[in-house]
Structure formats: C-alpha cells, structure tokens
C-alpha cells in the first residue's frame, strides 16, 4: 500500500513538473525588476539608471507593439555597461529581439573601439539570452556573476 502511495506521489510530481516545464522555459513569469537590479549589481564601473520605454525603444530599435513589458538601465556615457530585459507578446518576436540586442552590441563595439577600447572587452563578453518570451542583454564588469544570476533566473 505504502509503495502504491509513493508511486502515485512520484507520478503526480512528474506530471506537475512536465506541466510547469520544470523551470521557466515554458514561460513562467520572471520578476524583471529584480533581475535587472541583480544584474546591475554586477556592474562596478559607474551606476546605471532605469530609462523610459521610449528611450529603450530608440536605443534597441525594438517594435514596442510586440513587447509586453520591458525594463532597461543605461549609463551616463562613461562605460558600455547596460542591462535590458524585454518580455515579448509573442514568442515569434523573441529571435528578432535577440538579434536586435546583438546588433546593439556590435554597434557599441565599433563605436567604443576608437573612443574607449577597454570597454570593447566588456562588449565581447556581453550576455544575450532568452527564456520563454523573455530576452535579456547584459553588458557588465563581471560576466561570470551575471551568468550565474541568469542561470538561476531560468535563462
């Protein structure tokens, strides 16, 4: 009898795990503000400040009609560090958003190469990842720590 109950529990747990996709890959909600704050915590060269969605849109050339929610923190112009997280309305836009983040990093690398070359190394290590409908970009002084934070958040 005990064995049967244990088996039932195990089966129920397995089903629950499958239904919730055992993590966030299936689109579990992510606390974007907290994730942004955690990622900003890995940046030591100057502080970032959260920017409006208009600034975010014109910085990354995102189609905001296809964005459900967003948060971005940019810097004073002193460094290349930044954090941007978007939640796409539709998973079809995820790849495009990722590509726009890659373009941003490429452009910044080209611009900083002449102006402030040490920042290019940070851009080389830029983290761009997606999970479900979320896409994140993080240019930081400590990519290892940022990577751990992203992993913990389900990326």
């Amino acid at each position, binding site marked *: 009898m005990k064995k049967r109950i244990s088996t039932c529990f195990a089966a129920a747990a397995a089903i629950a795990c499958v239904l919730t996709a055992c993590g966030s890959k299936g689109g579990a909600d992510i606390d974007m503000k907290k994730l942004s704050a955690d990622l900003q915590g890995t940046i030591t*060269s*100057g*502080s970032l*400040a959260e*920017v*409006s969605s*208009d*600034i975010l849109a*014109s910085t990354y*050339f995102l189609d905001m009609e296809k964005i459900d929610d967003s948060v971005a923190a*940019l*810097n*004073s*112009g*002193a460094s290349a560090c930044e954090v941007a997280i978007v939640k796409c309305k539709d998973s079809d836009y995820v790849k495009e958003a990722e590509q726009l983040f890659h373009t*941003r990093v490429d*452009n*910044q690398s*080209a*611009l*900083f190469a*002449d*102006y*402030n070359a040490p920042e290019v190394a940070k851009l080389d290590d830029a983290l761009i990842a997606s999970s479900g409908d979320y896409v994140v970009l993080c240019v930081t002084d400590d990519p290892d720590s940022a990577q751990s934070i992203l992993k913990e958040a389900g990326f």
Partner: protein
Amino acid sequence: MEQKKKRPTRQERRRAFLINALTLIVLVLVVFEGKSLISLFSRQNIHERIRMEEEEVFAQANIPSRETETTAERDTTFSAPTEAETDPPETEPQTESWEIGLPEGSEDYLDCVVKPQETSVDDSYFQDAVFIGDSRMEGFRNLSGITKGSFVTAVGMELENFYSEAQIATAQGIVPVMDALKNINYTKIYMMLGTNELGAYDMNSVRESYRKVLSDIKTLSSSAEPTVYVYSVIYVEEALVTTGYYVNNANVDAVNLEIMKMCQEEGYHYINLNEVFSDGYHSLVSGASSDGVHLEQPYCQDWLDYTRQHYIPEAA
C-alpha cells in the same frame, strides 16, 4: 500621631543628586544648543544650515560669500531674477547668477548667453528639437528623463570626425551624423561638442570647425531659420579624469570662450550649463560624476531643468 518624616538615605540622596545633575545638563543643552536640536528635527540638512550661517556671517561682514560665485548646490532652483535683482547696482557691479561659470575674457560675448525665463517650458517644446552631441549628451538622453525630441548622439563624437566617420546607430546600421539628420524634422538645434576637442592645439580652429558643422546642420533643418542653442562644455572633476591630462578645466574655459565667440558672431544662443555645474572655482561640482566627465542621473535631471528654463521665447 503624625508620622515622623523619614530622613533620606545616602543612596537616595545620591540618586536625587544624579537626577538634578542630569536635569541641569538637559536644560543647558536645550538652552544653548536649541538651534542645533531644532535643525536636527527639521527638514534642513546640515549642509544647508552651514550655508545659511555662512551667508549670515558674510552678510554681516559685508564680504561676498562663495555662494555668490556658485549656485552649484544640488538643490539649486533656477529662478528668474526678480525686479529688485535686475535693478542697476548703486555701487559695484554684481555678478548675475547666469554669469557664473563663464570663462574669463567672455565679457564681450555676454549677449549670446541665454537668460532664465520666468516660466519653464514643458517637454512639448522639444518636440521639434534635435539634440546632437557626444557621450555627455548621450548620458543626458539616457538619464535626464526628457520625453520629447530627437537625439543624434555618439560616444567619441567630435568636430574632427563629424563628417568622416559613421557613428550614429540607426535601425539601418551605423551612419554619419549628417545622414542621420536627414530623417529628422527639426526647427531647434541643441548642440554639445567640445569635450573631445579639449586636447586641440589651436582653439581658433575648433571655433571654425564648430561654425562649419552648425552651418551644415542648419541646412538640413525643416525651418529656414532654426533656433540654434549651443551648450557650454561642462566642467570636469580633474582628480577623477583618467582619459588624458588635457581634459582639464583650463581647456574647458578656453574652448567655451571660442564657442561663445562663435555664438555671438552667428546669432546662436549659448546655454551656460556651468552656472549650475560649477563649484565656484571653475571645476565640476564634486559628486556629479563617477569618472569626472559624465554626469550622474540627478545632474542630468538638473541639466534638463536648466534647459527648460533657458530658452528664447518665440515671437508672439
């Protein structure tokens, strides 16, 4: 029978003495340090109190205080001069607040300096404005909270590479500044260059390059006579600067003087941001920047407030 009054014990006398002594100390503190206690519980912070007391002392001694040279306190409000303040002085000429942070030798070019207006504009004023500039202007875009206007900014933008380098990121890729401007409708131009020119050997050539750049930008405007605002180069905090010895405030003053000359000659409007960012000694106010050059968010917000109040009213 009346109960005999009990004589206090030695321990009770000592306790009473202690209570009396403590009461006396409290009274002395209240009487002599009342002002301090009041300020402790008031909203005024200690810096403000020190400033006020400094002013009181200076006023009594009839000595101009450091604050007559600077309004660089973070809580500066950009109030327009009142009638009393603008009255001609009876004795010595007084420095107007908008003259703070101007370079030495700029007396002949004061006409181009934008004076504060009584009413600030809201961001709709910037609807038809383009802001062009280097990484400092990019920081302003990112952190000031401005909600209207087009921005054409790039880290490392300078007069020397203005035409030659593709440096503006657009949805179509990186393009030169002039190409980026072709897609924008603007009748007001806000320009900030000069920080990356601080190492120039010939400041006259900086002035001439700036003149040419602005002249070309005007031709792309949707107005035949666009309003041209030129921001001063903001002071730096030299102790924090790591990008080169030439990034210093003597050079900032030198380039600003050339910019003022150009503005005066061309009828452009010079926005003297150093009125709020000078520490009173021709240097960036401490705490405004983590690298000595780029302004932190509260200062970018001050920059926006200043811009909202310093404009040329449109003719009725």
